[in-house]
């Protein structure tokens, strides 16, 4: 067998140049318009979506951390507040107790003193009464003495003694 020993591929055939240009231009247009365009756009969109999602996740994480920190702060604040309130309550309690104690003491003192004064008054009244009665009795005795004729001294003395004996100090 013999072939045309011709290195034809190095000779750019006019028809092939024409068809290659036409096919390549058409291919370029169709691929850009209907295939690579949407693909590169889709890829870009997906990449930005992924980036956004990652950013969002990061942001959410940061927000979460911030929230947690805030919570902790709140808890701490609450604890401090509680401690303060407790302390205040304690103070108030103690104050109330001391006040109560003081007041009670005062009241007691007052009661005691008023009692004492009452007693004093009663005592005075009683003494007054006693004095009055003693005076009455002395008057009575004197009357009786006067009525019995103060004849004999011994007898009179005996009588006075007897009368004094009769006085009942109530």
């Amino acid at each position: 067998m013999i072939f045309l020993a011709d290195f034809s591929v190095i000779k750019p055939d006019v028809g092939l140049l024409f068809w290659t240009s036409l096919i390549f231009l058409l291919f370029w247009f169709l691929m850009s318009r209907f295939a690579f365009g949407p693909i590169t756009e889709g890829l870009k969109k997906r990449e930005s979506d992924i980036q956004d999602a990652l950013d969002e996740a990061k942001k959410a994480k940061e927000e979460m951390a911030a929230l947690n920190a805030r919570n902790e702060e709140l808890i701490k604040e609450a604890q401090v507040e509680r401690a303060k309130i407790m302390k205040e309550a304690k103070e108030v309690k103690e104050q109330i107790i001391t006040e109560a104690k003081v007041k009670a003491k005062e009241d007691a003192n007052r009661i005691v003193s008023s009692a004492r004064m009452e007693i004093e008054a009663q005592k005075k009244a009683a003494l007054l009464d006693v004095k009055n009665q003693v005076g009455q009795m002395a008057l009575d005795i004197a009357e009786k003495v006067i009525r019995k004729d103060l004849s004999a001294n011994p007898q009179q003395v005996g009588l006075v003694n007897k009368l004094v004996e009769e006085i009942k100090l109530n």
Partner: protein
Amino acid sequence: MRKFFFSAIYIVAFAIVGIAQHNHDHDHDHSGHDHSHDHAAQHDHAGHDHDQHHDHGHHGPICGVEQDHEFDAGATALHHISDANVYSIGPLMIPLPCILYSKEDGLKTFLSSKFHFETLGHGSGHQAVDKYVLDEGTVRRVTDPNFPKGEVPISGFVHKEIDGKHASFVCYNNNLYPTDAKSTADGGLFGGGLTSFYDFSITKNVTSMLIVCSFLFFLFRSVAKSMQRRVGMAPTGLQNFMEPFVTFIRDEVAVPFLGPKYDRYLPFLLTIFFFILGLNLFGQVPFFGGSNVTGNLAVTAVLAIFAFLITNFSGNADYWKHLFLAPGTPWFVKIILIPVELMGVLIKPVTLMLRLFANITAGHMVILIFVSFIFIFGKNGTYWPGAGLGAIGSTLLTLFMMAIELIVAFVQAFVFTILTASYIGASTEEHHHAEHAEHH
């Protein structure tokens, strides 16, 4: 491991079909012969059972010219990498539309089956159509005005070396008529040039391009569709498989060289990458055309021209200033630098064109020559032990070469794309000069 096994089977099958195809060739040579030479009938008869026939290499004369039937591996390889007006799937020849223009006869369109080539053969026609003939799959034109127009039977082709130049003839009515090759745009640089006709046919290469481009279009269209359909969802299947290629070109080629402007050029870079890669890989498939599209200078030239046009049309003021003024250099350096810069503008696309062409063509030729070992060691089908050993050696070598070619297919597509991106990047770069920085 399994893949290698299948590849090995593939290549052995390729070799067997190659031998079968080779045998068919002999058959049709004979029948072509039959039409005009009754005296050769006996010879023809002998040729039909050429498997046992030692002298099968000689087929008798065509138009009185004794044909040299020694197997020529180089010529076989050259034949197989050429463009053709028939599409071959294995030994099956499928006709393609011919669109031919000559100044004398105007435009002629017909299907290449009109040339009456064998369905299982090498694509040499038995009929001339309006002075056009199909010589080994390629349309040629008879220039002689005495050659009849219309459909006439022809009896064969003769190829001769005349003054060291290759000449082809067609044998009609026992006369030899010289035939013209189609016009080529090399301006005689590679032995081509404008001839009596132009071939705008849908050739094997054009068909391959149409097949590959349609396939790629539907592939990426379905990826784009599933992307639009599944917004906000993780990619699956085909989309998941194809996306990394796109992101690879974007992140490794477009963005590093073009910076933030990459958006404008990314579709072009992706198109050129997948166009080259698709055709490189398609050309690797045995039986199915085995087309050598990216190993054809016309195709790589078109790609390089597009790269050149895009580079220069997107060139900014800085680019042109650097090209024509070479700022910051003394005048005597400018004299040297400016022509060098201007030459560089043209050399860049030329290297793009030649690199891809040479790599793919060389790969195809080496594989074809390795396969030819079967015929060389088998003494052209007459010595079966030699053919068997040749098949084993050829299988191993071809297997190795095909693996290399697979890498080359990707590497060359990538290199073409990355260099195009770097040229565009250089022409659109915003320059910040060192001397400016010093002044401030």
